[in-house]
């Protein structure tokens, strides 16, 4: 039924996707960006710099831990914009799940191949601000060093913020902590779902409890990931 021509197109899709990735990657960040800005004309675009949800240090295991372990110690009193004594004074009754950084395996044990960093990458990365490093041109492509864009002022005010996200399984409250304009911690502070918080711990994000069903990752989107994303976005909207 399928003609030869459709078979030819079919075969091309695999090659086409690989070629597309190579083309965009080789063009590098700056070139693609330049074209985008040319399109916009003189208009200056304020791009939102998405948050890097980082916890201070990788945690050793996947057990639920308290919010205070996720958010780094504050030298000064943290301004809490939407005061919720539940979080400030007493820990939430439900176990709080860290989501900013997954429990990283202590060491890649049985992996013989040690990661190699090409000198070019190391050099360009070292010269660039850590937080806003754009992708550089690949070492095997255009050697032209990509210049990082000027760092933008953070749109966020320091503090701890709360936001809600809802899925069909229920609602999740996220807490986001901003310090020096950067997100330094993020956690689920409350969940009102049909399932227990431990169930949420299995899903948001998956890496928190990757031991789930003995697999490394799970393919297929999860409602609670969306809910957590929405909650973080709502919390961040209050930080502006």
């Amino acid at each position, binding site marked *: 039924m399928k003609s030869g021509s459709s078979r030819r197109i*079919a075969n*091309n*899709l*695999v090659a086409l*996707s690989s070629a*597309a*990735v190579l*083309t*965009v*990657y080789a063009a590098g*960040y700056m070139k*693609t*960006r*330049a*074209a*985008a800005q040319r*399109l916009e004309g003189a208009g200056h675009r304020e*791009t*939102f710099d*998405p948050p*890097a949800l*980082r916890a201070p240090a990788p945690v050793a295991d996947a057990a639920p831990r308290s919010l205070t372990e996720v958010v780094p110690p504050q030298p000064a009193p943290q301004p809490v914009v939407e005061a919720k004594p539940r979080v400030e004074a007493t820990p939430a009754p439900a176990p709080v799940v860290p*989501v900013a*950084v*997954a*429990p*990283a395996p202590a060491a*890649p044990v*049985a*992996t013989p191949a040690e*990661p*190699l*960093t090409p000198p070019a990458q*190391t050099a360009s*990365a*070292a010269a660039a601000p*850590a937080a806003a490093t*754009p*992708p*550089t041109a*690949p070492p095997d492509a255009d050697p032209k060093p990509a210049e990082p864009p000027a760092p933008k002022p953070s749109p966020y005010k320091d503090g701890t913020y709360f936001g809600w996200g809802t899925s069909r399984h229920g609602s999740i409250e996220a807490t986001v902590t901003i310090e020096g304009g950067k997100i330094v911690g993020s956690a689920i502070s409350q969940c009102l779902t049909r399932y227990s918080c431990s169930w949420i711990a*299995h*899903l948001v*994000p*998956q*890496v928190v409890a990757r031991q*789930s*069903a003995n*697999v*490394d*990752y799970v*393919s*297929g*989107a*999860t*409602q609670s990931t*969306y809910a957590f*994303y929405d909650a*973080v*976005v709502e919390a961040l909207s209050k930080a502006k």
Partner: protein
Amino acid sequence: MTRAVAMMGTIVTIQLAGNHEDAIDRAFGWFRHVESCCSRFDPASELRQLTARIGAAVPASDLLYEAVQFALAVAEETGGAFDPTVGHRMEARGFDRNYRSGDVVRTLPKGSGVAAWRQATPDPEAISFRDIELDPDERTITLRRPLVLDLGAVVKGLAIDLASRELRTFEDFAIDAGGDLYLGGRNPEGLPWSVGIRHPRAQDADELLDSVRVSNAAVCTSGDYERRSTVPDGGHHILDPRTNEPAAAAASATVIAPTAMLADALATAAFVLGPIDGLRLIERHGLEGLIVTPALERFATPGFPSERH
């Protein structure tokens, strides 16, 4: 090390053996770059700038051009079961919210719903991917009619692929963009990565449809359990572009491919096509896939690397 960031409407997680902050920064940089270029929700995105200029040959960045070119190739290949012009239809069904800012994005008149969309688009059935014209020499894109381009199924995969290209020198890494995955090399135990496939009717996180072992491959799944529309009768988010109704032939479609861009696009197409035509499509490309119907019947390619069957 592992880092998780909220972006592209979901949580993106990158796991990499060793401590390489700068490499992970660059990998996330690609996600940011793709999102700022191709977001349907950001009026300043290159994609939205393009859709504001109907009838003109608009010069496109490599990123947008390649994304559109690939989307059109998949649309052609699937006879329109995959179609990047479903934008208006998505919006009519309530996918009008910028999940980053919470702002409601509306290009359709108020009074949302399918009726309003039909009013706003006099001949909606006629809008299709064929209204997009590419000039490969000038690298321009021409939209012949007013339409909303939705590259969601392509650009999230493309961002994963660009990030994985960035991390390629490290060999062992994993990228998870809301359940769309690329697994490079081996897991921390030195084995191929073990990937569970979400059960479309799971009531429990531990309930998986299947699991596979993969290395240097993308695994993407489209399911009817994905983010629900905010319009009460809107159904789930994957429409059959040929009928404008929610696709009903499959509950879940998984594709394993060399790139996430291809895996994601074909998973979306296979979900719309259903088990028979969907598997035919996947096999025609020499790829592996698993499709489950709403009645939970399994259909897999003969070489699907299942650990359970």
